[in-house]
């Protein structure tokens, strides 16, 4: 078991920033463990969600932002729904993921590549083009065998659109991206 010294490496600014960005008070957590009990993703997490909450109270920025769990949370809202102190835990996980992204801690590279490929498609067409997203992801990740076995099923049944549905306002949508992330952003 890892020992965390609560007086060592305590980063107050980090706790304040998470509280501010999520609109939640992390100190309301009394470690009942209900979030982890209901979390379907604990089996792939390196830190279960209640431990992330405790580490957050202890201001352990590095440990949290380098956690794989942040990238594997699907925002299924079990934790938020079941928290007896009404903490929006999923929103805190989201905010931690924003911070990890901003600070370049990407512990599940493919998850990020998939999300980026998705958003790239939205930026380009105004609506997500699923086939294009998959191709982009495969190009970025180099995982050329991803779902190759589904190909025949999908093609035979015409289950995926072969062409994007560009909207008239696609430039307007692209401007939302540029307005939020800046002209120079090339992640998406």
């Amino acid at each position: 078991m890892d020992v965390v010294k609560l007086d060592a490496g305590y980063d107050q600014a980090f706790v304040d920033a998470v509280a501010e960005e999520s609109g939640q008070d992390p100190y309301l957590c009394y470690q009942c463990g209900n979030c982890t009990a209901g979390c379907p993703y604990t089996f792939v997490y390196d830190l279960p969600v209640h431990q992330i909450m405790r580490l957050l109270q202890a201001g352990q920025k590095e440990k949290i932002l380098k956690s794989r769990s942040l990238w594997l949370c699907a925002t299924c809202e079990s934790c938020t729904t079941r928290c007896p102190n009404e903490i929006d835990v999923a929103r805190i996980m989201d905010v931690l993921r924003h911070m990890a992204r901003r600070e370049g801690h990407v512990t599940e590279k493919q998850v990020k590549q998939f999300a980026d490929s998705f958003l790239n498609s939205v930026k380009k067409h105004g609506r997500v083009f699923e086939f294009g997203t998959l191709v982009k992801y495969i190009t970025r990740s180099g995982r050329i065998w991803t779902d190759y076995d589904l190909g025949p099923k999908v093609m035979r049944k015409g289950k995926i659109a072969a062409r994007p549905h560009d909207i008239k306002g696609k430039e307007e949508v692209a401007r939302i991206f540029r307005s939020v992330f800046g002209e120079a952003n090339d992640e998406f």
Partner: protein
Amino acid sequence: MNSELRYAYYPGCSGLSTSKDYEISTRAVCRALGITLKEVPDWSCCGSTPAHTVDHVFSAALSARNLALVEQEGLQTVITPCPSCLTNLKVAAHRMCEESFRNEVNRHLEQACQNSIRVKSVLQVLVEDVGLQALQDRVMKPLTGLKVAPYYGCIMNRPPDIMDFDDPENPVAMDHILKALGSEVLPFPLKVECCGASYGVARKDVVMHLSGKLLSLAESLGAEAIVTACPLCQMNLDLRQDQINKTLGTSFRIPVFYYTQLMGLALGLDKEDLLLDKLTIDPEPALEKMRQAEAEARSEEV
């Protein structure tokens, strides 16, 4: 039936592609029940999960562009079949109740959003505005004896204070619809447990495990079909069912319908309105069994 069933309609991107069957059957069912859908003109993607995992203002802006388009149409309510779109639109509207957040979102939009629109799921409208009795009265071909496991997915009703419909732990809206159609609705304890969501591509192992659990429970309960209301759930459970079988050494063969497809069947809608041929796991054996049981029951009556 209320004659004022007119809503702005937000189909969502997957409706144009991998969940075309959901989209077509949703429209057909609405038409049959007297609901007028006015598609949001030139709607754009809500950003789905990827957007909110990157930035909350950004995610809200992608949704708010669409809410602003609905405002221009002069309609009060927008409805969508997709739980992911629903969540994003609803969360955006909820957060924009705070003026400072709304102003921040509007800074990124060309057409400001007043945040005056109500967002609902198609499911909510069917249950609340059309009503179960009206639906039952329209059933022409009841799904008698078909044992179904209703699976809602994780975000249709959660978090409860934002989604504001049905029960967050044990939702029953779809159960009631399926009962009204004549089917036998099994209690399905994992009805809100996550299927693995969009990790099918980047972390397939996650979907194999989580969707595998759902299929396993459905099978052990004797379900002849699973019924969903979410494009992503449907894809994980249906299109990936063989992958799951290969990974877990199982041999599931459970058809996974959209609830609107079963509604269409019971309402006697045309084949072209249901697109059952899009399902990867052939639903015909389950439907044939249902028809045979009904025919036998009828011959016994005579």
